[in-house]
Structures are given as C-alpha cells and as structure tokens.
C-alpha cells in the first residue's frame, strides 16, 4: 500500500534556496528558535542533573519501545475497559477512513482540533472537508497556518516562520477589519472567534503526547487551554496517536513531564497538562459522551528491530533539535518538504516512507554538527542516523553518478600513500594557473559553491610530509631528555590503558 501523498516540490536544495532568499522568514525563525533554545538551556540548568534526567528518559523510552507490543496491548485493554473505542490503523488511509466513519455516523458538520502532528501527517483536515465536515484548528499557531493554507513549519511552533505583521494581515482578512499587529489583540480576536466554534462542534479531535499503559489514559500538554475545550465540549472525541507514544506508568510520566516542556519551550510545565481516562462518567462534570483512540503505525513499525533506527521511536516531539539546529535556523521547516522538519524530520520522514528515493536528498541537509543530539532530551543520535541514511542511499544505488565517481577516485587516492602523494604533487602544479596570493578565487567546477562565499586556500609549496625528515633530524639533535613528570604521566596512561581504561 502506498504511503500518504505529500506535496514534495523540487529538491531540498531548491526549497532551501527559497527560504534563504526570504529575509522575513529567516529573521522570524532565528528570533524564535534563539528564544526557545536559550530558554531550554536555562531551564535545564535550573533543574540540575540534566544529563541524568535525559538518561532516565532515554531508558524509559528504550524499554517501552523494546516491549511495545506488550505495552500497546496493555494500553488498549485498559482504555477499552474505560469505555474507549480503540482502533488500530496500519496506514494513513486507514486512520482517515476510521475517522471519517465516526464523523459520518455522528453526521458531524464541524470538528474542532487541538494541536496534533499525527493529523498533519495523515492530512486529516482535507479528508474531513471532503465529507463537508469543517475542521477548525484551535491552537493559535495552527489556526494561523490553516488560514494561510500552509503546513506547520515547526513541531511545536507551527507558524514560527511568520512575524506578527504577517499574522495581523492574515487575521485582519479573517476578521474583515484591520487588526493591529499587537499580540494581545490578535490572540483576543482568535479566542473570541474560536469560542463559538467550540460550542458548535460535533467532534473534538486531539493528538496525544503520552499514552499511559497502566490505566489506558492519554496525556496532553498545552498552553492555551484549547485542548481542554476540545476534549470537554464536543459530544464525541477522537484522539489520534502514533503507536510509539506509549509509556508504561504515571511514574514514568514524571520523568517525561520534566523533560518535555523544558526541552520544548523552557517551561517548567506547560500551562495545562491534562490526563484523560475514558469518556465522561456519570459523576463527571464534563467530557465527551463517546471517545475514540486511533493508534497509527504508518511506517513506525518498520523501525522496530532496525538497530540503526529503532531509537527514532523514542522521540517525544519536543522540537528541541529544531531549535538547536543551525541549518533549520537558516532554512525553516518547509524546506524539509515533509510534515516533520528539522533534524528529526530529516530522519523521520525518509524512515517512515521506507527510504524511497524521493526522500534521499533530505539527509544531506545537515553539517552533522551534533547539536540535535546534544539538545535531545532522550539522546537520539540523529547525526549518526543521518549518516546511516546516506549510506543506505548509496547501497541502494540512489546516489549521484558524479559523486560515485568522485568517491571511487577518493578511495584510489587515499588507499595508497604513493598515489596520494603524486596526486598532491600534480595538484601543486595544476593550481599554479589559479592561485593568487596563496588563495584561489575562481568560481568554476567543484569550487563554484565554496568560492561563492569564500577564498579557497592553495596546496602548500612543501607538504608536511616533505618537511618531516629535516624537522625530525633538527629536533632529534637538540632533543632533551623527556621531562620526568611528563614521562611519568605517559607511563601511567599506558598502564591504565592496558588495565582496560579508556581516555573517555
């Protein structure tokens, strides 16, 4: 079965170029990511022992994913006992059909939604519109994106690429009157407008941050209170969740609730954290009469048992890797082309899509600096996964022919010092035509990209290896006795190493 269609136009490089030429976007993205990442660093430091908490979080996720079948079963059984209708969907299409069946059965005319990346992944809004059920995003950022007819460009801050003037313009159009670019006025307008939508809606659609296996509950983190409205006002609630959202117990949630908000926005806790266990009971003041949970696979189970990618399922969707990523900061989320952007998107998108060739270039959009790994609250080695994706692309024969020839040449030159040395000698002669003042400025061939932003250095007149013997004999003649303190320390290292110690 084919995976969900995603509008993918051009290459990462072409999409990135659009963003790089958009100063509004770059300024807006830089402004917010800098605020979020410095907030995260501050929150982590204030909390203390951050790396130990990360390790706890990682262990919980590793354990859960390793026993996902067990915990999913436990979760589904408990949720059903609470009166929830639990559905499993293998593909995006299946999840959509289940959702539409429910909407049709309820003769739903409108659905209010709180933030959910899974519903973005399966394109639920378009599907609901197709049966004349209006889908209304109620998270402020999502509402803005919906008005603009765009997709979110950040996991947590969907409208990160827009500044308040652009947002004021969009909301003014919606309001039919000019609204000033003041955050409180704009938020006030949306709040008032959405209030009516909440009251009219037949269905409330939510995502799920964590699903607690031991009680069959779902947990939502949010700041605007809209998820509370979505999950209490409409008579029917549908929750979409990725199959990997599970954690075993409420005790585990303590660790996750420590990691998630701090990593996402630098908050100690989001303004609201809701735990929902089943539909409204007789003694409850509010809540839906009927509750459905649709658990989505859509490529996730492909990662199970894959040693290079299973940890991908540990992701808690905090967006910290996006905020830390220097590439994301310059190109924003849309350049990645998929629902998920930034470093996690660059790995998750191809992984969920079974590594089809269309997504091959996305893993190239990284300098492999490791900032994503350092920021990740559950320590997912995204930088290594990007290299694995590149390797799989080469192994599958989807690589660029020119690059393949270049790399064959690299291997030939680098596997023998004789060839390597001759190549450099040739280079020294060849570069004479283009070297000026020790630098190369021509923008041709492979130097075009580099030299559009830099001056390239030239090969040295005398390589280090050509200077070595002379240097060695000069220093050998003057050599003093080894400094005794230094020699003793080196000996100590050697002894320690033989005892199995490493220098890390």
């Amino acid at each position: 079965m084919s995976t969900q269609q995603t509008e993918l136009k051009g290459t990462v490089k072409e999409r990135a170029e659009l963003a790089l030429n958009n100063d509004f976007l770059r300024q807006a993205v830089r402004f917010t990511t800098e605020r979020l990442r410095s907030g995260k660093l501050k929150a982590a430091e204030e909390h203390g022992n951050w790396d130990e908490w990360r390790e706890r979080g990682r262990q919980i996720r590793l354990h859960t994913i390793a026993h996902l079948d067990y915990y999913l079963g436990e979760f589904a059984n408990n949720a059903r006992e609470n009166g929830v209708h639990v559905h499993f969907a293998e593909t995006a299409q299946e999840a959509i059909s289940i959702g539409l069946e429910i909407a049709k059965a309820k003769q739903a005319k409108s659905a209010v939604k709180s933030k959910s990346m899974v519903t973005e992944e399966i394109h639920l809004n378009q599907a609901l519109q197709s049966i004349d059920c209006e889908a209304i995003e109620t998270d402020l950022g999502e509402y803005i994106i919906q008005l603009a007819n765009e997709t979110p460009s950040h996991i947590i801050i969907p409208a990160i690429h827009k500044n308040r003037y652009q947002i004021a313009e969009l909301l003014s159009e919606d309001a039919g009157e000019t609204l000033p670019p003041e955050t409180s006025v704009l938020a006030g307008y949306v709040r008032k407008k959405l209030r009516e939508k909440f009251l009219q809606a037949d269905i409330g659609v939510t995502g799920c941050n964590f699903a607690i296996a031991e009680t069959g509950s779902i947990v939502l983190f949010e700041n605007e209170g809209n998820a509370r409205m979505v999950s209490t006002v409409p008579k029917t609630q549908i929750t979409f969740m990725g199959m990997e959202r599970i954690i075993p117990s409420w005790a585990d949630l303590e660790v996750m609730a420590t990691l998630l908000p701090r990593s996402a926005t630098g908050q100690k806790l989001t303004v609201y954290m809701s735990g929902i266990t089943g539909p409204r009971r007789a003694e409850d003041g509010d809540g839906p009469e009927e509750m459905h949970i649709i658990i989505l696979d859509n490529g996730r189970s492909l990662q199970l048992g894959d040693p290079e990618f299973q940890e991908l399922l540990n992701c808690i969707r905090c967006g910290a890797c996006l905020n830390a990523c220097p590439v994301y900061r310059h190109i924003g989320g849309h350049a990645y082309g998929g629902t998920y952007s930034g470093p996690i998107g660059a790995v998750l998108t191809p992984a969920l899509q079974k590594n089809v060739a269309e997504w091959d270039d996305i893993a190239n959009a990284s300098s492999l600096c490791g900032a994503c790994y350092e920021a990740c609250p559950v320590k997912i080695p995204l930088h290594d996964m990007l290299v694995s994706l590149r390797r799989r692309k080469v192994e599958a024969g989807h690589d660029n022919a020119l690059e393949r020839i270049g790399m064959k040449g690299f291997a030939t030159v680098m596997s023998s010092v004789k060839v390597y040395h001759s190549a450099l000698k040739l280079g020294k002669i060849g570069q004479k035509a283009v070297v000026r003042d020790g630098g190369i400025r021509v923008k041709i061939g492979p130097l075009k990209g580099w030299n559009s932003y830099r001056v390239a250095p030239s090969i040295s007149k005398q390589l280090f290896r050509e200077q070595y013997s002379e240097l060695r004999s000069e220093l050998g003649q003057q050599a003093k006795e080894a400094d005794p303190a230094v020699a003793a320390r080196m000996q100590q290292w050697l002894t320690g190493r033989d005892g199995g110690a490493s220098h890390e």
Partner: protein
Amino acid sequence: MKVSLFITCLSDAVYPRVGETMMRLLARYGIVLEFPNVQTCCGQPAYNSGYWKEARAAAKTIITAFEDSDFVVTPSGSCAYMVHHYPAMFEEEPEWQEKAIQLQKKVFEFSNFLVEVLGIQDVGARFPHKVTYHPSCHGSRLLGVKHEPMALLNNVQGLELVPLPFAEDCCGFGGTFAVKMSDISGAMVAEKAEHVIETEAEVLVGLDMGCLMNIAGHLRYRNKPVRVMHLVELLYEGVNYSDEHAANRA
C-alpha cells in the same frame, strides 16, 4: 615510548605549519613525534557521504600507520572522532575491527593530549593579542574536548580572551556539506564570521583546520583582517615570543 603524529590530509597538504609547530612545541618536553609515512586521510569525507567501502580504504592506511604507536596525536578533533567510527565500519572484517579498537584507545586530539595525558596546562607562552575561540562541533560536542583549550588559553600571558557569541554553533563546514549544500553552508559561515567580527578580536583560534579554513576563507572573501590560527600555532608562537622577551630582559 612511541608518540606519533596523525597529521590529517588537510594539514599535510594545506597547513603544514600546524604539524611543524606541534613537533616543535612537544620537543620542548622531550617528545619527538614520529611520522609514519603511510598515513593518508581518515576517510571522513567518504564516510559522511555514505561511501563506507571507500572510507575503509582510507581508514586502513591510518590503522596501519599507527599499529605500533603508543600514543597518536592529531591536530583535529573531527579526525580523532572519526577513528571512533572505525570499529562499526569494520564489522565484517574482524581483524581490522580489532586493530581499530586498539587505535581508538590511543588517539588523542592535540589539546586533550597536552592537558589530560601530559598534564601541561601552561606552556609558558606570551601572546599579547585579543583572541576569540571557536569550539569545533566534533571535538567539543562529540569528543568532549571542552576545558582543555580554555585552560591552555587562560594561561597564556598577555592574551585577552573574548567570548565568541553563539560559539557552539556550527560554522557550516561539514566537509562535503559545504560543497553539496553550498548556499546553506554559506549562510552558516556568514553568520559565524559575523559573530567573530563582532568580538573585534585580532585572532580567531580553534582546534580543527577544516572549520578554520571555512571561516578564514569567508573572512578573506570579505577582506576582514582577522588572523586565523590553530591553537598549537598560537601556543608555539607565544612560547617563542616569551623566550625572546626573557632574552631581551636578561
């Protein structure tokens, strides 16, 4: 005891002064570095691009070069970290894998070797300039070399160390990334250079010639007269300056 120099292809071909100053600085402590001539490149360009077979061809020259060394010192955190990938790369060649594991234990980035192995935090240098430091990603973030360069720089007489804003951000080099994704890389290096210029430092110092080549190339492109040096070059120049200073006074 055999202490060997893993020069890296970039310093061999483009920045031989880095190797020379490292040899001269360590000779002051009675360590004369050996240079096994069979070494070429660590293989990182191929490895990062997904061409592991090609990377292994290069890696074998490094493994062979240092088989009988006790310590291997290199002026690059990135190339030192590359050696940490070798055991996984040679999963299907157990003999090479075992050698790779042995090599990993004895490869040290230069400042890490100086501070952690030799116990030297003050080389007795004098360098009366305003200096800023860029921590390269692989060395600092992945290899964990963070406090060593700080200790060494803080002990240099007359040196004014100005913090680089957003120092930990990648400079945009990323090896083949700078060629394949040249516009993104260009935006990243422009931002990094902007921060360097903001500090009004005369000298930018670092531990990896790849990153420094990238930033220096951009500064030169914009005609910004910031001197870019590897830490070992700075320390050696500072030691010489200090010796001369003492001689003049005597």
